C-alpha cells in the first residue's frame, strides 16, 4: 500500500469524524423513550454459571474490548457513546429497570426507612418451615415459609461478626431502592432455633457435589456456625421471595432477545452505567450478572419483565462470609494492569490499599473513605455497563447519590439495627464521606446546576430558576459562589445578548427578553418563526479562579402565550 493511499484513507477518516462531530446548531430534542412495561409473553427461564461468567468477564470481555479499535479510539479521544435512554434533561424515564425516587422528590424519613418493604418481615411468633437449603453463594442459609405462607431466604452473619452481613444488606437495599432500583424486601430478624422445622424432602447439594435430603444434623451444622445472642436467639437477614415468575439474572450487556420489551442494549442504559458510581459508594463490589434477577410480574394489568438488583450482603465493609478483603474495590480478582505493574515494579511499590489497618469494629468490617476514589473503584469482575460510563452518566448518578441527605442516611443506618452504636456511627461517617467525595468529583467536572424550571409572575413575566446541587449537598456555600449567564438566540445569532453575573438567588429574569421578542415591533420576524433561546450559565467558586463549563438551557417560544417553554438542557462542551 503506497503512502498516498494511506494519506487519502487518513483524510477521509478525519473528515468523516469531524463531520460527524460537528452536529446540529440547534438543540435536538431526543425522541421520547418508549415505555418498556408493555404486556409481553414470558421469556424462558435462564441461569448463569458463575465460573463461566467470571471467565467471560475477566478474560474474553477484556480482550474483546482491547482489540476493538473503534472503542479504543473513543476512549482515547474522550468521545464515548452516551447512554441511549436519556431525555432532553439528561434524566431517564421510569421503566422496568428504574423508578425516579429520591433523586427527583425527596423521600420522607418513613419512606426511605421502609424502602421496598411492604410489611414487617416473617412472622417470628410461630413455626418456620424450612423448604429449601441454600447451596449457592458463599454463605449458608435456607428458605423458610412462615405462618402467613410467605417465603423468605434466611441468611446469617459470619461467626464473630454480628450484624456485619445482615446490617450491610438491609442498609444497602434501602439506599439502592431510594436511588431508584428495584430491590427485594430485606428484613433484619431475630428468631429462636426452636422455631425451625425441617420440611420433608428438602434437598441439599453439599460442597462435594452430592445431592441428598437435608437432615437435622445438617441443620445443626449450619446453626453451629452462626453467632447466637445471649438468650440463644439468632439474628439473620430475611429476604422475601419476589413476586412473579423467576426467569433468571439479566446480563449487563446486550438485550434479552426473548423479552420483547428489551430494546435498549443494557450497557447503554444510564441506570446500569450509573450503577457503577452507586456501587462504588456502597462498596458493592459483587455486581456480576448473577446478582441480578429478572421477574415476570403482573402490574397494572400488564405482564412484563421487571429487573431487580439482589444480594447486597457483600457491601460496605462486608464480604458476606467475613469482613472485606484488602483489595476489594481497588482491583479486579484478575487485574492484568495491576499484575503487569507489580511485575515491572518488582513489588517495590506498595499500593495504598495494601496498607489498610485491620478491622476496627467487627460489625462494620473493613471499610474506609480515605482511599476511596469514585472513578478508580473496581468491582470484583469487570462489568460491561460500568466500562461504558461517561462523565454525564457519572454526573447523573452523583446527583442521585448526593440527594441522600445526612438525615435520611441516619434513618437508614438505624434499620441496620447494629448492637454496637460506635460501629454504626463509624459506618455512617464513612458512607457520608464517600458520598461527598462522589459529589466533589463529579460536581467539579460537570457544572452542577440542575432542576431548571420556569416560574411565571402574576404579570406573566418569566424567570428561569435552578438549583446548585453542590450547595444543596452542603459541599459549597452561596457566599463563595457566583454565576454568570448569557442568553443567545440559536442558531448562534448574537441577537441583543443579555448577560450578567450574580450570586445568591438562583434565578434569571426573562421578562426583558419576553418584551423584546413577543412585543417589540423591531423583532416582528421573531413573532412568527420558530427559534430557540440558549441560556448558558457557568459558575465560579471562591476557592479557585476558573469559571466552570457552561450549562446550556434551551427554551422555545410559545407565541400564543407570550412565554417560553423549557425544552432541554445540554452539558456537552
Amino acid at each position, binding site marked *: 500500500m503506497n503512502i498516498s493511499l494511506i494519506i487519502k484513507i487518513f483524510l477521509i477518516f478525519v473528515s468523516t469524524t469531524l*463531520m460527524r462531530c460537528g452536529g446540529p446548531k440547534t438543540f435536538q430534542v431526543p425522541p421520547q423513550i418508549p415505555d418498556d412495561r408493555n404486556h409481553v409473553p414470558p421469556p424462558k427461564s435462564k441461569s448463569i454459571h458463575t465460573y463461566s461468567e467470571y471467565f467471560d468477564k475477566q478474560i474474553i470481555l477484556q480482550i474483546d474490548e482491547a482489540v476493538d479499535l473503534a472503542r479504543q479510539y473513543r476512549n482515547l479521544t474522550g468521545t464515548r457513546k452516551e447512554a*441511549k435512554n436519556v431525555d432532553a434533561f439528561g434524566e431517564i424515564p421510569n421503566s422496568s429497570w428504574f423508578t425516579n425516587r429520591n433523586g427527583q422528590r425527596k423521600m420522607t424519613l418513613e419512606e426511605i426507612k421502609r424502602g421496598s418493604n411492604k410489611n414487617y418481615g416473617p412472622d417470628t411468633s410461630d413455626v418456620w418451615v424450612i423448604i429449601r437449603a441454600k447451596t449457592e453463594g458463599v454463605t449458608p442459609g435456607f428458605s423458610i415459609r412462615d405462618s402467613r405462607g410467605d417465603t423468605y431466604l434466611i441468611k446469617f452473619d459470619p461467626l464473630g461478626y454480628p450484624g456485619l452481613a445482615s446490617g450491610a444488606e438491609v442498609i444497602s437495599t434501602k439506599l439502592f431502592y431510594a436511588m431508584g432500583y428495584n430491590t427485594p424486601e430485606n428484613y433484619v430478624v431475630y428468631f429462636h432455633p426452636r422455631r425451625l422445622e425441617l420440611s420433608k424432602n428438602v434437598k441439599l447439594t453439599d460442597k462435594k457435589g452430592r445431592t441428598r435430603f437435608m437432615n437435622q444434623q445438617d441443620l445443626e451444622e449450619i446453626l453451629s456456625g452462626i453467632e447466637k445472642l445471649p438468650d440463644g436467639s439468632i439474628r439473620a437477614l430475611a429476604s422475601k421471595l419476589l413476586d412473579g415468575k423467576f426467569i433468571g439474572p439479566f446480563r449487563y450487556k446486550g438485550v434479552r432477545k426473548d423479552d420483547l420489551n428489551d430494546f435498549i442494549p443494557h450497557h447503554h442504559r444510564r441506570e446500569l452505567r450509573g450503577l457503577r458510581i452507586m456501587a462504588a459508594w456502597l462498596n458493592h463490589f459483587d455486581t456480576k450478572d448473577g446478582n441480578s434477577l429478572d421477574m415476570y410480574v403482573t402490574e397494572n394489568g400488564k405482564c412484563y419483565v421487571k429487573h431487580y438488583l439482589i444480594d447486597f450482603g457483600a457491601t460496605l465493609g462486608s464480604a458476606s462470609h467475613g469482613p472485606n478483603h484488602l483489595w476489594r474495590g481497588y482491583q479486579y480478582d484478575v487485574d492484568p494492569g495491576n499484575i503487569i505493574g507489580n511485575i515491572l515494579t518488582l513489588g517495590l511499590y506498595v499500593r495504598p490499599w495494601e496498607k489498610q489497618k485491620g478491622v476496627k469494629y467487627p460489625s462494620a468490617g473493613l471499610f474506609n473513605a480515605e482511599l476511596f476514589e469514585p472513578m478508580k473503584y473496581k468491582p470484583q469482575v469487570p462489568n460491561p455497563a460500568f466500562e461504558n460510563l461517561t462523565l454525564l452518566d457519572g454526573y447523573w448518578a452523583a446527583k442521585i447519590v448526593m440527594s441522600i441527605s445526612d438525615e435520611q442516611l441516619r434513618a437508614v443506618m438505624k434499620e441496620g439495627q447494629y448492637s454496637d452504636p460506635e460501629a454504626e456511627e463509624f459506618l455512617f461517617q464513612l458512607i457520608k464521606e464517600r458520598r461527598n467525595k462522589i459529589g466533589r468529583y463529579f460536581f467539579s467536572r460537570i457544572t452542577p446546576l440542575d432542576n431548571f424550571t420556569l416560574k411565571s409572575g402574576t404579570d406573566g413575566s418569566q424567570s428561569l430558576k435552578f438549583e446548585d446541587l453542590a450547595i444543596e449537598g452542603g459541599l459549597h456555600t452561596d457566599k463563595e459562589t457566583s454565576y454568570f449567564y448569557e442568553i443567545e438566540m440559536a442558531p448562534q445569532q448574537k441577537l441583543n445578548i443579555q448577560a450578567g453575573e450574580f450570586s445568591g438567588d438562583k434565578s434569571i429574569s426573562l421578562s426583558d427578553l419576553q418584551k423584546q421578542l413577543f412585543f417589540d415591533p423591531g423583532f416582528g420576524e421573531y413573532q412568527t418563526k420558530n427559534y430557540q433561546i440558549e441560556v448558558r450559565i457557568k459558575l465560579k467558586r471562591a476557592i479557585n479562579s476558573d469559571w466552570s463549563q457552561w450549562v446550556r438551557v434551551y427554551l422555545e417560544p410559545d407565541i400564543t402565550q407570550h412565554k417560553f417553554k423549557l425544552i432541554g438542557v445540554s452539558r456537552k462542551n
Partner: protein
Amino acid sequence: MRTNQLFFTIIFIFTIYFPIYSQNLDSTASNSSQIDMAKVKELRSQYKNRTTWDQIFAFPGKLLFFPFKLILIGTKEAIIFIDESKIIPKVQDFLIADDGSRVAVPTYTSRIGVGIKYRQYRLLNPESRLSFLVMYGLSQRQRYAIDLERVSLLKDLFYSSYGGLYEKLTTEPFYGIGPDARKEDRTNYTREGVATKIALGVNIAKYTSFETLLGFELNNILPGRSTSSPSTDEIYESETLPGLDSEVKLAKIEFKLLYLSINRPGNPLSGFDARAKFGYFQQISDDQFKFFKYYFDVEQYIHLFYQRVLMLRIAAEFTEPLSGKQVPFYHLSELSEDRSFRGLNRGRFRDWDMIMGTAEFRYPLSRSLEAMIFADAGQVSSNIFENFASKNLEVSYGGGLRFISGGGGVTKLEMGKSKDGFLVKFTLN
C-alpha cells in the same frame, strides 16, 4: 472509474451516509399496551449498539482476535461442563474425607513426572500421618513411597517414623566429577533403588527436634534411557566411577537436628527452616564403600513489608570416604539437586563438597499469585575449604511465578539463566 476511486466512494458512503441514517432516532413506537415483533425489531434497530462505521473500524481487531476467541469460548463451555457435572467436587469427595483426615493431591516434578500424594492423618495419634506417593513419568521414570510419620511413643515423649521407597530414575544425568564438568560431557544412567528407614525423634525445645535414623538402601545402576546423550556406562568404567554397574547395598545411620520456626508451611512469611544432618554409610556384604556425609541447610524468611518476603538460604554438603574406601558416584555432593539450583540441570556438578547460597525475593501480584526473582550461587570441590573462590562460583538468576492454593499448596513456574543457558522448571505440590 478507477479501482481506488471506486474504493473511496464506497468508503465515503459507508462512513457518511450510514452513520447519518443510523443516528436518525425518529422513533415511531407507540405506548400501546401490547407490543408486536415488528415493533420490537424496529425499536431494536433504532437503538442498536453499533453503527456501520463502528463495525468497520472495529473489524480488523475482531478478525485478529476471532480464532483465539473461539478457543476461549471453548474453554468457557468446558468450565460450564465441569461445573454442571460436579466433576471436581466428586473427585474431591473421593479423594478428601469430610473431616479432612484423608487427602489426596496431585503432584508433579520434572525429575519424575506426574503423581498423586495420598495422606491419612490422625491414624495412630493426632500428629501421625500415613502417606503414599505414586509418581510416573516419561521414559518409565517412577517413584513409589510409603511413609508413616510422627507416631508417638512413650506418651509423646518420642516420635517415630517409618518409610519405604522404590524408585527408578531412567534418565539421570551425569556430567563428570568436579567444578570443571562440561555441559557437552553429559551422559545419562538409570538408577533403580529401594530404600527403607526407621527414625526416632524427640522435641528438645520450641521449634527444635532431634532425630536418629537407621536406613537401608539398595541401588542398581543400569544403562540410561535417554537418546539425547550417551549412557554413562558407555563412557565410564566402574573402576573410575565407583558405584557404576554394581548392586550396592548400603546401611546408614543419620543424626538430624531440625529447627522449624516458619509461621506457616508451604508459603512462609517469616522464620527459619534449618537442618543439620550427619550420616554414616557402610556397604553391606562388601567393603568398597564407607563414607560420612555432613549436610547443613538454613533458610531464613524475612518479612520485609506488606507480604514482600526475602528468602535467604545457605546450604553445604560434605562427603568424606573413610581411608581407602570409596563413595558411589551418585552419593557425591551435588550442586543442582531438585530443591536447589535453578538454571542448571540436575546433576550438573558433583564432587565431595558442595556449598551454595540463594537470595529470593517474593512479592504478591494479585490474590493467590506471587512473583519471585532469585539469584543462586554455588560451587563444588574436592575440598571446599581449600578451593573455595568466588570467581569459581556457578551463578544462576531468574524469576518465576508461584500460585498459592487455598489449602496452602504451591505451584511454581521458575525460569533460571546460567552459563548453560535458560531452564524452565514447573513444580506442583
